[in-house]
């Protein structure tokens, strides 16, 4: 089986690229369809203004930042096993950022005005700052990749690594501030959001990295050093716990305020799909089940019991949980009516006082998947062309990896 695979490996690779191109084309087609006919062909409306494309895009952008964390643990915190993973992390980060930004830009009402967006920057707008931060991230990540791949530049990889680390903390803070700055809606406008986004980026980034790394190892017929697997697995567990903590803090403090109680009730209890996604999708499947998969084997104390498959499953579940959480946060946050007339019940032809309804449409989902496909294509072609498979030190120096 392995021999057959090795023989037709190139063919399998091209098939994979073709598949990615197909999905990317579908996404671009959907974007064209949306631009041609207007957003009326999507499920978004004047109540729910940001929909599925934004769920996909924010997942990709937050994960892109978090994926670089793997590299930062190497360069900034000096942990050797992570240093070897830095090139793959940088490449993956660039790929995901490109995918996420493509989705955001193609979802604009006037995507033909990107040049206007890039040349008229309002300094009070976090979106405008993000234009600078995201482009800077591309440049820095590419520079970082260069310092690692070009031997003569290797001595610069640590300072550039520091710069990358600092830049992406600011960038992820910027992503959280998009929502934190919105005083209008009860779901947002909280100072807790930037730190929450940073911790989410750690968790999701590591999960995505692990899935991609495992796929690469399986493709090349290699196995990951169990010691490194254990480290990454435990780290994922810590990040998932930290995210759970901040999400809990956000909801618990909201529940305390009488004026926020109705909103929390909606999200956590009687809001239809949102409580299901929150409790089922994020808490149980996206956090508790992965934690079980991560920690339970160690708890049963069987030697070499860390099943690689279990950790990949945990990572995939964390990603599922991230989509659920983002759906609840972004769309659920918009579905709850604005409090324009406190003390009054309101109704109107424009949805005042009513829970807004939203159904994801096919063009939106295709656009989101198209973004994922773009990230996939950049990663797949990148790892083919560049030497980014982590080169771990041989097993005889295992004690160093511990």
């Amino acid at each position, binding site marked *: 089986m392995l021999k057959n695979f090795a023989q037709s490996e190139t063919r399998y690779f091209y098939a994979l690229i073709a598949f990615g191109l197909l999905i990317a084309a579908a996404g671009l087609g959907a974007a064209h369809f949306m631009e041609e006919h207007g957003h009326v062909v999507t499920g978004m409306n004047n109540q729910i203004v940001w929909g599925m494309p934004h769920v996909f895009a924010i997942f990709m952008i937050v994960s892109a930042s978090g994926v670089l964390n793997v590299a930062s643990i190497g360069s900034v915190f000096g942990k050797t096993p992570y240093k070897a993973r830095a090139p793959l992390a940088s490449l993956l980060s660039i790929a995901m950022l490109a995918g996420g930004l493509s989705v955001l830009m193609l979802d604009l009402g006037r995507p033909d005005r990107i040049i206007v967006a890039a040349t008229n920057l309002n300094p009070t707008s976090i979106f405008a700052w993000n234009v600078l931060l995201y482009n800077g991230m591309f440049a820095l990540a590419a520079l970082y990749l260069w310092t690692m791949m070009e031997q003569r530049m290797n001595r610069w990889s640590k300072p550039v690594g520091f710069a990358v680390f600092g830049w992406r903390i600011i960038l992820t803070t910027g992503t959280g501030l998009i929502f934190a700055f919105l005083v209008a809606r009860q779901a947002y406008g909280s100072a807790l959001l930037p730190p929450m986004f940073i911790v989410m980026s750690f968790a999701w980034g590591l999960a995505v990295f692990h899935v991609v790394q495992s796929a690469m190892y399986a493709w090349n017929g290699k196995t990951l050093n169990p010691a490194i697997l254990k480290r990454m697995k435990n780290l994922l567990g810590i990040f998932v716990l930290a995210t759970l903590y901040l999400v809990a803090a956000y909801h618990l403090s909201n529940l305390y305020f009488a004026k926020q109680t109705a909103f929390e009730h909606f999200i956590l209890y009687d809001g239809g799909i949102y409580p299901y996604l929150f409790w089922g999708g994020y808490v149980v499947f996206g956090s508790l089940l992965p934690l079980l998969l991560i920690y339970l084997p160690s708890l049963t104390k069987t030697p070499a019991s860390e099943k690689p498959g279990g950790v990949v499953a945990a990572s995939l579940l964390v990603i599922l949980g991230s989509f659920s959480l983002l759906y609840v946060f972004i769309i659920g946050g918009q579905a709850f009516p*604005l409090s324009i007339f406190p003390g009054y019940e309101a109704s109107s032809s424009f949805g005042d006082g009513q829970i807004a309804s939203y159904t994801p449409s096919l063009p939106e989902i295709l656009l989101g998947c198209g973004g994922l496909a773009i990230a996939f294509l950049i990663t797949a072609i990148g790892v083919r062309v560049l030497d980014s498979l982590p080169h771990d030190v041989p097993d005889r120096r295992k004690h160093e990896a511990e």
Partner: protein
Amino acid sequence: MSDKVNLNRRQFLGKASAAIAGIAIAPGMLLFDFAHARPAGEAASSAVRWGMLIDTTQCDSGCNECVSACGKENGWPEAKSPTDVQWIRKVELKQVSTGRQTSLPMMCQHCAEPPCVDVCPTNASFKRADGIVLVDKHRCIGCRYCMMACPYKARSFVHEPVLDHNSDMPRGKGTVESCTLCVHRVDRGEQPACVEACAKAGHRAILFGDLNDPHSEIYLRIRSVASAQLRADLGLNPGISFVGL
């Protein structure tokens, strides 16, 4: 008759007529100052701040004249679905603690500290010098961040191609829009369409004018009648205030 008596009678007649004129004019809700168009070539000035005072006690729950008038004036059709644009809408309110019901027209509040202007990445959403908050469609990229930021849900996104343009009010697919305080009419010295329609319907619930002009009806009335801005706690200082809330 002595001159002194004549003088007293004249003085009395003069003062009396002045008093009668004052009594006749003041309560007769003058909805506009003696309006004058801004001369061609002159920019809007921050010496003026356009605003409205809406009397919810005069607003009729079943009446939709302001909404129809705005749609006709600015070229947007009657809204039938959640993707349709609404620059102004009638809101029916019921006070939770007392059950008292009222209604009011709701549109862009033309804040002095507009959150929509703060968040717009391209400066498309901007506040003109005279207080009117507008969207510059030449720069709007349709990101909808202003719609997320507005606490009054004032803004709409144009989800479909616009087929019937009004040459006074350009609007197009893929951009965001909201009440412009009928800036094209105001610049000509006229009233916004909703104000005129409400007066024509006999309710006179909407009073429009220059909040900075000490002689304007709105300036005087807003200082004599209890009124409130919506969500005043947010510190946005809207140009629209409501009586009876």
